[in-house]
Every structure is written in C-alpha cells, then in structure tokens.
C-alpha cells in the first residue's frame, strides 16, 4: 500500500482558507492528506504549534498565508516570513528533514495555486516516507486510503 502522509496545514482564514474553499467549489483535485487548521493569520502560527504538530505525529506541516503586502493585519505575514528560516534551520539541525516544513502564500482567489501547492507538498513528503520525529505514546494508526469518491452522477 502506498504511504499516505499525515499533513497539518495552518491556513490563514482571510486568504488560504478561502483559497482552499475556492479549490473545493471549483472541484479541483487536491490530496485529502491535508488536515486544515484555520488560524486568524499566519502570524498566529508560533513555532511551538509547528513543533507540537511534529511531536504529535505529523509527517509534514504546511503553513499558508497571504502574499506579502496583502495581510489583513498589515504585517502578520511579515513576522511569519521572518520566523520560518530560523525554525527550519533549528529543526533540520535537530534531525528533521527540512522538506517536511513549508511556508507559502496563497490568496483567496488562488484556488488552483492552493491545490497545486498541497499536491506538490504531499508528494514531496510521501517521497520522504514516515516521519520519525514523534517519540511518545503508542504508534498512531496510519490513515487508511479513503474509498474513491463515487462519481457524482446527475
């Protein structure tokens, strides 16, 4: 069976979350591996949240926010953009593959971009295989492959 990664996505409610909605309403195919967490701003995503997601067994963490200059709160995404490189470096230094964490920007009108980023990221994490970061508690059940959605006939 193909490895299905568990991916946590922190999505800014003003842009990426709406972009995800748009991808859905546009019937764009994107992997179901992403568990979306709706946050008020990508600036809300503190490094503790990301580390916690990996601690709890995430195989990948995707942080999506508004493009620089389009933040609803003016500069929340600036802070995210500046926080992420050091976090990347630290987690990589502690033994996490850096590809498991990604920050990108998706606006509310970019449903297609959302679907593409999620697909790319899922495939990249699938390549890496299961994450060995989690060190507590029993092994988590691996997500089963969801049954193929029935063709929606008329």
């Amino acid at each position, binding site marked *: 069976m193909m490895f299905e990664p568990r991916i946590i996505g922190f999505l800014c409610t003003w842009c990426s979350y709406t972009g995800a909605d748009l991808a859905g309403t546009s019937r764009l195919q994107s992997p179901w591996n992403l568990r979306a967490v709706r946050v008020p701003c990508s600036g809300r995503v503190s490094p503790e949240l990301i580390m*916690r997601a990996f601690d709890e067994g995430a195989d990948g963490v995707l942080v999506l926010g508004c493009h620089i200059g389009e933040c609803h709160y003016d500069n929340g995404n600036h802070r995210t953009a*500046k926080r992420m490189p050091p*976090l990347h470096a*630290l*987690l990589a*230094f*502690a*033994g*996490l593959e850096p590809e498991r964490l990604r920050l990108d920007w998706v606006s509310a009108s970019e449903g297609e971009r959302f679907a593409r980023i999620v697909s790319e990221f899922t495939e990249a994490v699938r390549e890496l295989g299961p994450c*060995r970061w989690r060190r507590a508690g029993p092994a988590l059940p691996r997500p089963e492959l969801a049954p193929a959605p029935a063709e929606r006939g008329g």
Partner: protein
Amino acid sequence: MTLSTEIREKARELLASGQVRTVIGYEEGLRGRTRPAFVTDVDDVERLVWNRACTHNLTTYLPGRLRPPHQSNGAGPDERVAIVAKPCDSRAINVHLAEQRYTRDQLHIIGVACAGIVEGAGESRPEKDGPLQARCQACTERTPVIYDTLIGEAPPVTEVADPVGEKMAELEAMTPAGRMEFWLGHFDRCLRCYACRQVCPACNCPTCLYERDDSLWTGMAIRLQEKRAFHLGRAYHLAGRCIGCDECERVCPVNIPISLLNRCLSAELERSYGFRAGEAPVPSPVTTMLSGEEG
C-alpha cells in the same frame, strides 16, 4: 596596578559618590572558586577580584534588579548599579537595552579587556593558566562593545582554534536521522532542572512557557519528547538574542551541548538577516518586519 585593583578603585569611587547603589562583580569564594559578588558598601570593595576564572555572565542579574521607568514609577528597587562586564557579557546588555529591560543611564558598565576564561572556571581551584574554554578559543573580541569605564588593555589575538565550529561541521555532515539520534541521546539525560534557563541573561520571561501547566502546546512531563520540545523551544526563543556566553552549557549538570543549538540559530540569523545579537541595541530580526530587500 592589577586589574583587580583598578576594578576596586572604580567601585570605591562609584559607591562613595553615590552614583550607584550596588556593584556587581566577582569575588573569591570558598575552595578557590570565583563567584559573583554584590557589593553595596564601600568597605567591601576589597572583595572584588578579576582573574581568568571569572566565567559568570553577571548581566543575568540585571533585569531582576533594574526596571524600566514605565514599570516602576521612575524608581527601581536599585536604581543604578555598576557591573563588571566581559566583552561577551557586554553584548547581553545591548540585548536588554533593545528589549527595554532597563535604560542605559541606570547602568555603569565596568568593561574588562578579556583574554579568555579558563576551562573549569566556576569550579573549585581551576587551573588559572590552563587551557581556555571552547568559546574563548574562537573568540577574537578583546574589548566590550559597550562600557563606561574600560579596565586593562586589549591583549593581542593569538592563535584561534574553533572546537565548537568543528563539532558543528561534524553534525551538519551527518544524515538527519543521525542528528536526531545524537540529540535524542543528549536530551534523554535532561533532568528539566532549568539551570540553563536560570543562568541565561536573555531568559527573563516572568513565567516560562515551559513551566506553565496550563499550556496547551508544551508539556511539562519529564519525557523525551517534552524535553526535546523544551530545549528546541528555548533555543528558538533565544534566536537573535543569544550572545553565545555558553553559560547554559557550563551549568548543565548532565553536559548537554546546548551551545550547539544556539550556535546553529546564530549562524542562521547571520546568514539570513546579517544579524549578530548584541552588537548594537536593536531587537531580534525574528520579531520585526521585512525590509525591502527581504520581501
């Protein structure tokens, strides 16, 4: 006149004229140990010393003694203090000033030109002429970046070795899985005694995030995963604020190489933002806005 005498003279002058209420320096303690000293009386200035074992970063004591004017109705518990600062310690003062822990005029900095601290400093009877600490071997700073009085003359920079840098390169050459095993092996010994946090001049949150039992995001358990979260989280909180005094590593009872984590983040901040903590009183770049070039 030795450096100790010069420090005593300056301390006497500052205390006698009432310019400061306390002088924070070093003294000879029991069993040949050099330890921090708080001198408030002119008669006590003879206790102050300077030697090659003055390893403690005394700036740790400053945020607790001084308050910025807006938090204390204009007067702190000890409005003005003088502090003996090595070049590395003086950068922690810049970090405090950037974060408005106190104001510059509350402080008289007795800067000391430093030729390095010996291995084993802080313990009983260290070899005063022994090998230098790892951080001092790579250090080329001889005078503090900020001071009011400078004691001594900057000794020349002689041979420079970099044992910590070599260890970093060795770790970076490992596979991610290898590095994870390396760190888990070290974190496994952690007792969560918080000595690293207590001794750190930059760790001065009133309530530490990692000691809050109501925190949803960080556990207080003494399990491997929570210990790793504590160390990585603490290192991250020091990004752009750690000045590399390596006191955390010195006080660690189980010898976790904490300085490597801090060194990793310092290197990343210098690479990404061209920022070195404490060289000037400016806040860490992880807390600020993007500038034009970075957008």
